[in-house]
């Protein structure tokens, strides 16, 4: 079994484990952030480049360091490999660069975004981002599209992680959406705005790390931190029926899959990913449809958790340098 050292922590893992998975086994700060990698979806990862790490020693056999930072989600560990994540200042700087790239065309419309509070990009930019954007050009915009009756695609917010495409490939019966165009105008879409029509298409909402794919039945109903998440289950022939209900009083506002520490869908006791079918997700919106197990444990650092508010510090805003930039200033 190969031994790998990440930020000074050594762990022995199975052959073929990626650096990111090994770092997650160690846990905590050591695990690099991942926007596109999703362990339950094959061939995902490698696109967003936020999980880059520095390999200072290739392996026991070939101790040369790797010349470039590597995507930890797609690089398997070798025996004796030494990896730096948080401990390499140049790498943290490089990652901040990637976060900046992800943010330059992101609308930052968090105040009206349904994903706010559960958004991975929010967490990432809170940790690595600059307080001020250096990008003073017009941001890329797309029209909002309804793909089907239940899913809203807000392409402007998308960071092209390809997770939803992988869901369509691997969880749904057929893939009807994909990436159109190329470069910075490429977009997730269905051909001629066809509806996503599959029993498991709703899972694209849960895998989306940002607010690009949101639940139309929950749209503008509530901020997620005002809801009360509870674990619930029901007997369903199509899916595992294990979910989290986001409730307000007796009303079920939203149904989503159970997510683990890394924001990925939890496995069922049988060991399969606990995807939900569209019937459970969109139609069972009454508390009587579900057996409620109890309050969902939410990470105490999450904004959904109430204690979070105690730690919020007052923001200082410097108004001396503010200037208005007209739309046609430099375009």
């Amino acid at each position, binding site marked *: 079994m190969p031994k790998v050292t990440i930020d000074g922590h050594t762990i022995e893992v199975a052959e073929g484990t990626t650096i990111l998975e090994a770092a997650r086994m160690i846990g905590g700060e050591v695990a690099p952030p991942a926007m596109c990698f999703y362990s339950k979806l094959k061939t995902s990862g490698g696109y967003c480049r936020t999980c880059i790490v520095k390999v200072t020693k290739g392996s026991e056999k070939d101790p040369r360091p790797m010349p470039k930072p590597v*995507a930890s989600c797609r690089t398997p560990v070798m025996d004796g490999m030494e990896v730096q994540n948080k401990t390499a200042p140049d790498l943290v700087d490089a990652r901040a660069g990637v976060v900046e790239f992800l943010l330059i065309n992101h609308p930052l419309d968090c105040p009206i975004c349904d994903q706010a509070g559960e958004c991975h990009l929010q967490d990432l930019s809170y940790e690595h981002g600059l307080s001020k954007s250096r990008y003073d050009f017009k941001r890329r915009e797309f029209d909002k599209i309804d793909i089907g009756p239940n899913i809203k695609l807000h392409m402007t917010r998308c960071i092209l992680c390809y997770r939803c495409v992988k869901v369509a490939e691997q969880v749904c019966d057929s893939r009807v959406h994909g990436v159109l165009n*190329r470069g910075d105008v490429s977009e997730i879409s269905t051909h001629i705005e066809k509806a996503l029509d599959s029993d498991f298409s709703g899972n694209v909402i849960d895998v989306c790390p940002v607010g690009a794919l949101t639940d139309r039945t929950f749209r503008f109903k509530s901020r997620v931190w005002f809801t009360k998440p509870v674990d619930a289950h029901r007997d369903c022939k199509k899916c595992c029926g294990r979910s989290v209900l986001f409730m307000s009083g007796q009303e079920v506002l939203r149904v989503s899959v159970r997510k683990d520490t890394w924001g990925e869908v939890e496995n069922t006791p049988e060991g399969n990913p606990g995807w939900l079918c569209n019937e459970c997700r969109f139609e069972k919106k009454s508390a009587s449809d579900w057996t409620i197990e109890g309050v969902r444990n939410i990470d105490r650092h999450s904004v959904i958790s109430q204690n979070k508010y105690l730690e919020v510090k007052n923001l200082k805003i410097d108004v001396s340098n503010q200037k208005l930039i007209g739309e046609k200033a430099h375009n």
Partner: protein
Amino acid sequence: MGRKLLTEHINVPGIRNLDTYRKHGGYETLKKALGMKPEDIVEEVKKSGLRGRGGAGFPTGMKWGFLAKPEGVPRYLVCNADESEPGTFKDRYMMEFLPHLLIEGMAIGSFALGCRTSYIYIRGELMYVFHILQEAIDEAYAAGLLGKNILGTGFDFDLNVHCGGGAYICGEETALIESLEGKRGNPRIKPPFPAIKGVWGCPTVVNNVESIMAVVPIIRDGGDEYAKIGIGKSTGTKLISACGHLKKPGVYEIDLGLPVEEFIYSDEYCGGIRNDKKLKAVVAGGSSVPILPAELILKTAAGEPRLMSYESLSDGGFASGTMLGSGGFIAMDEDTSIVKNLYTFTRFYHHESCGQCSPCREGTGWMEKLLHKILDGHGTLQDVDLLWEIQSKIEGKTICPLGDAAAWPVASAIRHFKSEFEEYVRNPQNIQKDRHYYRVNNINPELV
């Protein structure tokens, strides 16, 4: 006078046809190769020291040696004819006039690697070359040089030519493989390398057109003979597509190791700078390699004359050197604006980025916009610093080398010509507002 191994018969009228090609010794080498053992052919290519002519300069023989050979799994040889780097046009020229040389090389290479089916992936814009190749392949099939039992040796070999959609990114070998499979041309994440898992999950070798063509003279004359040409580890001849402000632009076959000064100024090659102006800068190997000012391209930082070879051009690293790349030699005279030229390059990379990984997708567009801003006279000195920072954040962070290719020209232009950027920023009133060529099409000629 340089040797002409590839372009010897290129000016013979009708060389595109099989009969004329065979009159000039065509397909004799294939006959010879089919009488050899496949391993010996690979050995000859290894001996020749031939390095990949597509840009990276990886030894071809070594690449062939890496090919996995599992039992019962087909193997593929793919010719990368997706030549789309600005400044590079050697492969198009060769395929247009000598399609049979490529077919012969493909047959020899496939025999050596044990491939029964091979592909030529040609760039979508080169539709007319596609037709020329297809005609040549049909001729070769009719003459029994392709297909079943070639030349009575029992070797069955099918050659297909596949037309891409016209995307620069499909010149990256894994994107090319994706595209060939009928998918979106996104580069794959390596490992696994194509030598293990390539086209349809089978071991694959992807070679540039010129590398495959060079196999023919290597097998004809022997690898040792080929290795005598050139200098050091840069053996053989190389096609250079020279363009820009030169008296005689065009495709030249040179012996590697030719001094750059001789290549630019001798009458045998480019004949000097147009209108006898002074040389300002050279992009030595296609748009993605670092640009060098005249004094650094003619002489290395140590003061030795710079030679056209893989080693000499990269002497001094990126601080004072560049790369041979694909051989797209762009010379610029003293009147050229490096900033405008850089804008053209950056616009190209922005347009051609596949959009898969974020630094390249977002960074290339940002750099283009910043350069546009500077060219429009709205730039600040911070913008130049920001440009430097963006390129450093792209370089080495992407899946495929397109990110590096987009970052290097920006880095080198700022490194060697920073004063020119500052001039644009400080004196915007002096900027000559000329049109960018993409706008010219829309202009009413009566108003100009």
